């Protein structure tokens, strides 16, 4: 029995929630029922000049209604195409892909930066522990209110327009926050800082990485990252972000 499917999904709702950031609910037959927090899906363009599917993290899963929420930023022509699609239109998707976040019962930092915030919403919903949610933005806020039902939310903005002026770690320091496990998705400098913080405090840190991908299922070896341990697949130290990832224990991989 396969744990992933390629399906034709229908767009249920779509709106722009911040400049260039789109919020879309899609109906899927099987993928929503199989998906876990921290996994992603591949979206295929209908324009034939764009061959490669776009990996998009899953923001929310509604397995009862068989739907998925995807929140993405326009990063190029492919995501622009999705952003211009209308409710009721169909698109091909593949998923769920990747491993998703492990879920521990220790107190948790749930940390998202920029377009790394969306996958942290489903995780916040599912984690069964004390959660301190730290969200970092450049300036415009999005999704922040929806996190409030799942834990204490702390905001950092680069321009200081809301919450702590600075980055997510500045917010952690300012409020004197502590937790036993970090879950994070966001830009590499943020993830690197959290990796160092976790090492210093001797706590676990699970980061979700991204890389340019082609197949999304572990065949093309496009999206590897250097790992401490030998990967089982090709016997070198290259883990596939689409397959063994996208979530890794931060100390286990180089990024």
């Amino acid at each position: 029995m396969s744990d992933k499917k390629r399906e034709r999904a229908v767009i249920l709702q779509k709106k722009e929630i911040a400049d260039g950031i789109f919020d879309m609910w899609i109906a899927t037959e099987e993928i929503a029922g199989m998906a876990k927090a921290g996994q992603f899906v591949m979206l295929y363009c209908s324009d034939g000049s764009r061959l490669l599917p776009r990996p998009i993290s899953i923001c929310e899963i509604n397995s009862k209604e068989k739907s998925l929420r995807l929140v993405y930023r326009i990063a190029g022509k492919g995501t622009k195409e999705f952003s211009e699609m209308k409710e009721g239109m169909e698109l091909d998707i593949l998923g769920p892909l990747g491993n998703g976040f492990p879920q521990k019962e220790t107190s948790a930092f749930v940390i998202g930066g920029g377009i790394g915030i969306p996958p942290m919403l489903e995780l916040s919903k599912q984690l069964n522990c004390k959660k301190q949610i730290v969200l970092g933005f450049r300036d415009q806020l999005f999704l922040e209110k929806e996190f409030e039902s799942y834990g204490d939310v702390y905001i950092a903005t680069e321009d200081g327009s809301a919450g702590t002026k600075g980055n997510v770690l500045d917010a952690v320091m300012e409020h004197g926050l502590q937790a036993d496990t970090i879950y994070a998705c966001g830009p590499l400098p943020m993830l690197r800082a959290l990796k160092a913080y976790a090492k210093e405090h001797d706590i676990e840190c699970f980061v979700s990485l991204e890389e340019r991908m082609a197949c999304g299922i572990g065949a093309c070896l496009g999206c590897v990252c250097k790992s401490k341990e030998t990967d089982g697949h090709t016997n070198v130290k290259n883990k596939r972000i689409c397959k063994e990832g996208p979530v890794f224990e931060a100390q286990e991989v180089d990024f």
Partner: protein
Amino acid sequence: MNMSVELAGVTLKNPVMTASGTFGSGEEFSDFVDLNQLGAVVTKGVANIPWEGNQTPRVAEVYGGMLNAIGLQNPGIDLFVKRDIPFLKQYDTKIIVNVCGKSTADYCEVVERLSDEPVDLLEINISCPNVKEGGIAFGQDPKSVEQITKEVKKYAKQPVIMKLSPNVTDITEMAKAAEAGGADVLSLINTLTGMKIDIHKRKFALANKTGGLSGPAIHPIAVRMVYQTAQAVKLPIIGMGGIATAEDAIEMMLAGATAVSVGTANFHNPAVTEEIIAGMESYLREQNIEDIRELIGAV
């Protein structure tokens, strides 16, 4: 209606196979494709020892195609023989192992290791544009093409396919050299060397700077080269380069290919190989063609 074709004495149930490097050893795609339906699975290149491959980013999309510079990351022949061949053996399809190396000795070592394995054909990759040693270095000079073909043939128990590069002035010179060296089959084309620059970051899109261009963008070049090669040598040809539909596959056969490989299209639709086979069957029915072999070189 006959869909089967023959390559150096090996009968394929249909002419559609996967292109090396786009399909792993089939395991990842087996969720989407019934491997029993394929003429053959061509594995990702395997060397004598594990290779780490290049730095990332390794892939980039371009208009109508993509660039890749994976750098032949592979598990080495030991793990491959233990894991990948038994996996493929479960299916009723032919197994073609793509072999890569940094030296003639590397290629010969892998070929020799495979001699007693249940592998149907060997494809020798002398055309990878993304590695510093080996790969394309063997495939751009007729003398070295002939020489490495001869060497590999000394160790090979299975028929040998030489995979040719389009990054040459005249591919027919390489094809003739491979034929002179004793090749049983030719496959072409590998990717074309390309480059993409991110204008916002003013950086190369790929860590390797250059990468191999594949996808529909290169299909007409591949058709032309298969046609020219078919005119120049007697060997059967496996045609590849941007095949994404049954029409593309039929076009390639009309140009002179006995079989076809589907590569980049697997990324756009993981079930595309089965759809291409079905589409080719419909074409034969519509055209009242009894035997698919009638298409080979029939332009």
